[in-house]
């Protein structure tokens, strides 16, 4: 029986020296060999922490983390072997002093590979990121984007069973980012490696990944395509908002900037017929629309689609539907609290074009 590359169960991790009280909690996660998983979420969501756990650079405080069916944390030598099979490329990669070749061949050197093999594999990996022929260039002379490509080549030269990438295209110009994306898929195709990458970029995650894990505050968050909105955020310091449609402002707490992608849980949306005594008045996150779909869903709930400037999907107990005067084509008002808005992606303004 073949095991998945990663299998996580009730994994908990808290930084020992953390003053913020941040903790990562993953109830269950499985990544098959050859699968591409994207981790999407805002800064501080726990993407990097999860990658550190998957790279066996940090040990879960509790829970089970298996790598190809085995728990590598049973002893230090197993953890080292697992670390050699699961290679992480960090967000701001560090290049060692020396040449590009020294850097790309480093991992092979610590594995005791002969020099000829090191050189050949490094050359092939550099070709994948279009840096072949520059083996002897000093690493200190490279730009941030070139450094990112060398770091990627350095990981690819090792042909790991799991390739972990923390925002792999964060420092790279848009044109090259597509080539890096192609290289990631090429690695998966050629080596069958599991690839896990983090990204603020929702569209990139959708393009590359077989599956997407949305994280917020160290936990998995549910994602609904129906209630997913994005736009450039503005803020008054206390609250922030995006305007995905002219005049339709989604407000959420805190000071958030850049390009934001957010979701709203359908169960958190309150809905009443327009003119109903309990219908919400003016305020943040109040939207008018018309019921364009109404159907019974599981667990005694009705699924209601409301189309206006924006389209929302809400759920309501079936018994409440009639009591609130809701039927197909009816004009309704919906409302949700700013705290119900979950930010699943945010990019700084200068990267928003990616």
């Amino acid at each position: 029986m073949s095991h998945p590359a990663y299998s996580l169960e009730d994994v908990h991790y808290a930084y020992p020296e953390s003053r913020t009280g941040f903790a990562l909690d993953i109830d269950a996660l499985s990544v098959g060999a050859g699968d591409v998983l994207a981790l999407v979420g805002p800064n501080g969501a726990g993407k990097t922490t999860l990658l550190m756990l998957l790279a066996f650079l940090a040990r879960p405080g509790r829970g089970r983390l298996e790598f190809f069916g085995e728990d590598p944390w049973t002893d230090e030598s197993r953890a080292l072997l697992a670390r050699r099979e699961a290679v992480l490329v960090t967000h701001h990669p560090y290049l060692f002093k020396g040449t590009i070749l020294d850097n790309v061949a480093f991992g092979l050197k610590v594995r005791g590979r002969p020099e000829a093999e090191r050189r050949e594999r490094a050359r092939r990996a550099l070709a994948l990121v279009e840096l072949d022929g520059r083996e002897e260039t000093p690493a200190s002379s490279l730009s941030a984007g070139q450094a990112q490509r060398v770091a990627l080549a350095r990981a690819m030269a090792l042909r790991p069973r799991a390739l972990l990438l923390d925002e792999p295209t964060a420092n790279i110009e848009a044109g090259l980012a597509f080539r890096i994306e192609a290289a990631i898929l090429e690695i998966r195709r050629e080596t069958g490696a599991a690839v896990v990458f983090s990204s603020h970029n929702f569209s990139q995650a959708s393009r590359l990944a077989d599956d997407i894990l949305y994280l917020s505050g160290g936990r998995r968050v549910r994602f609904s395509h129906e209630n997913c909105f994005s736009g450039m955020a503005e803020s008054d310091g206390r609250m922030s908002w995006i305007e995905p449609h002219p005049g339709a402002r989604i407000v959420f707490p805190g000071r958030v900037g850049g390009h934001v992608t957010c979701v709203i849980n359908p169960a958190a949306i309150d809905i009443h017929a327009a003119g109903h005594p309990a219908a919400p008045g003016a305020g943040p996150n109040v939207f008018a629309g018309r019921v364009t779909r109404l159907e019974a869903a599981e667990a005694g709930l009705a699924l209601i689609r409301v189309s206006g400037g924006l389209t929302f999907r809400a759920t309501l107990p079936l018994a409440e539907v009639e009591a609130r005067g809701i039927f197909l084509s009816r004009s309704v008002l919906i409302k949700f609290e700013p705290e119900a808005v979950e930010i699943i992606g945010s990019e700084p303004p200068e990267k928003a074009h990616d």
Partner: protein
Amino acid sequence: MIARELLLAIWISLKTSGLAALAASLLAVPAALSLASREFRGKRALLLINQTWMAAPTVVIGLLFYYLLSRSGPFGRFGLLYTQTAMTIGQIFLILPLITGFSYTALRQVDRRARLTALTLGASRRQAGWVVLREAKFALLVAVLAGFARAVSEVGIAMMLGGNIRNATRNITTAIALESAKGEFTNGVILGAILLVLTLGINILVQVGLRSKD
């Protein structure tokens, strides 16, 4: 001072101080790496003690080891007093805090991502430690050379533990002290110049050697 005596004094200076620098580096650099790579209770106090120890006068260390190594002292049975070994031991303790302090500063300045990157690429913890040392090699070299320079130029320990015995423990600095006491100031200055030229030569040789390997 005849040529043979002079050459012997130079050799004794280089040998005792070179061995002291080597032995102290073998102790100090791993200690500095350990201090630089982890946080623990009492670390600040340890660094403060090390800094204070750096300023210890050579005669104080000489006196301490004179007591320890003299016949009636705890290590008197080894008969080390007035030997080159005693001089080397004293110099190790003189330069140990200096090399530790300089190495600690050098290693703290290495980008913290260096060790993490090595680990992500499959290095063992020991290999990752070597990577950090390699990234700081020039600064570490300065620490070791500073230790050597301190050892080769000190006179208190060499005099008290070596005894300035002709053709046995007399080195350049104790020879300078003797020549000065005799009123032979010119000889003293010449010996001082020889000491500086030797130190300069060693510095150049080591730095050129390291750069050619880089």
